[in-house]
């Protein structure tokens, strides 16, 4: 089964969340990010309820969300433990491991931070799970349009993003086959210790980079052959249009973001 099958395509049309303009979803996710990082426990609780409501209305399963954020779980745990053990304050429990102690402040601080990260992750997962990748890139393209970098249009930036996403699985496949070829000639990728593993992986880096460059040459040629000329392009969908609902979401998001800084 393919890991890269766009999940969002599956739920298209099932719920209003999927039909929202990508820009309003990006704005909402960004606002949620600001709110979670700046807000206190009550705000966090409110935001969590909001996210949960979105998950329910998008008919996403919580198990899926958990699966998407699983890789970040160790990171969140480490953040929590670091705060728990290294924050100064009155000890909460009478366990002292040298300079380490568990404090009440540490517990709440660590807990809040872990909560923040978890919520951010859920917001990101919610965005990518309810927005097909092409829509996401066209949203990014539209949002970047006012920012003109010399010689690079926002369309080119969006094209770069979509090419990167397009070639991720291809390059991963290439890496696997390089790995197999080297295993067949006695390379040891299961080597114990950091040094052995770094040595084994560095043997892959050069051939993989060469393969990437070769692919790039061919890809550029194929793009020119299909009429690419660096100029403006049109796409399957017309320019994005904001519905009344989208406008409300954007206004609320911006307001929430500003409120966090002002209050």
């Amino acid at each position: 089964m393919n890991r890269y099958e766009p999940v969002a395509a599956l739920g298209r049309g099932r719920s209003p969340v999927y039909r929202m303009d990508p820009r309003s979803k990006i704005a909402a996710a960004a606002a949620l990010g600001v709110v979670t990082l700046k807000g206190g426990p009550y705000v966090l609780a409110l935001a969590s309820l909001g996210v949960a409501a979105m998950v329910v209305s998008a008919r996403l399963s919580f198990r899926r969300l958990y699966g998407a954020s699983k890789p970040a779980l160790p990171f969140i745990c480490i953040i929590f433990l670091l705060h728990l053990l290294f924050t100064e304050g009155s000890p909460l429990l009478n366990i002292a491991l040298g300079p380490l102690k568990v404090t009440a402040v540490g517990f709440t601080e660590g807990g809040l931070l872990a909560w923040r990260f978890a919520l951010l992750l859920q917001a990101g997962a919610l965005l990518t799970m309810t927005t097909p990748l092409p829509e996401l890139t066209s949203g990014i393209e539209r949002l970047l349009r006012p920012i003109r970098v010399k010689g690079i249009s926002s369309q080119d930036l969006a094209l770069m993003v979509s090419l990167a996403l397009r070639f991720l699985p291809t390059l991963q496949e290439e890496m696997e086959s390089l790995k197999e070829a080297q295993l067949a000639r006695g390379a040891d990728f299961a080597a114990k210790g950091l040094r052995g593993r770094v040595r084994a992986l560095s043997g892959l880096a050069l051939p993989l980079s060469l393969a990437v460059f070769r692919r790039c040459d061919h890809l550029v040629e194929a793009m020119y052959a299909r009429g690419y000329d660096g100029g403006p392009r049109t796409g399957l969908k017309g320019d994005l249009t904001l519905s009344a609902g989208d406008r409300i979401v954007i206004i609320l998001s911006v307001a929430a973001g500003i409120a966090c800084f002002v209050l």
Partner: protein
Amino acid sequence: MISIEELLYRYAEDSTLALDGISLAIGEGEHVALVGPNGCGKTTLVKHLNGLLVPLAGNVIIDGMNTRDRTRLAEIRRRVGMIFQNPDNQIVGMTLEEDVAFGPGNLRLPPVEIRDRVDKALAAVGLAPYRDRHPHTLSGGEKQLLALAGILAMDPRYTVLDEPTSSLDPAARSKVLAMMTGLKLRGITIIHATHTMEDAASADRVVVMDKGRIVADGAPSSIFGRVEWLKDLGLAPPPIAELLWRLRERGVAIEPGAFTIEEAAEALAQLSGSSDGCVATGGGSMATSCIAPEDRDWTHE
């Protein structure tokens, strides 16, 4: 009409000529197979047809437009669609429909028109049900069909295919070849570079290249009959052409020039309506089944 006039090309100042005085005219609706051993200049020639390479000397003119004229390049590339050997390196979209939309998008067509073209092109190659999928999930043959759809969406007059089947398994290969027949029915000119003689057999015209020159140009029957000459060039004639050639060498009065199993069966059937009961039945498939073991006998000598 594509006309190539006295085309010279070399990749570096001091290297030998990759193309050494190529002159060739290809009319609309033709199906031309471009064959030759590896390194004969097929790919180099093919890349001149849409201005990816510009001649060192000579001209390549597509419907009156010279590929040297950069202002006409966009129109030339719309008319001359190109498919490369490795399907993975020509897919740019995150989904099938996004990929097919790339070409029309570069033509700056309105979205409604693009949607229409994408739908038709995907349907034409039979990939419409997978429009939302990631191209990575397709097989090699399907990726080539997707590349073909990407070109169809640009409404081309000519399609240039550079060894499109060389990395495919037999089933995928025959699918891609069938699609080429479909192109022909739409009146689209096909220029197919290949070193598989069987792939070339379905063309109207075979152009043989060697060392940057055109060494033969004619109907498949006139080319594939010259078995010894093809072998000297390092090309393998279609097995059936070789069989007939060997039969002739042995003194069987059979016409050369048949290079598909059906044609060869016909030729053999006409040869003798008598002694061999199997051949006498005359049906293509029956005759074929009789040829198969014989084929083995001849080659084992």
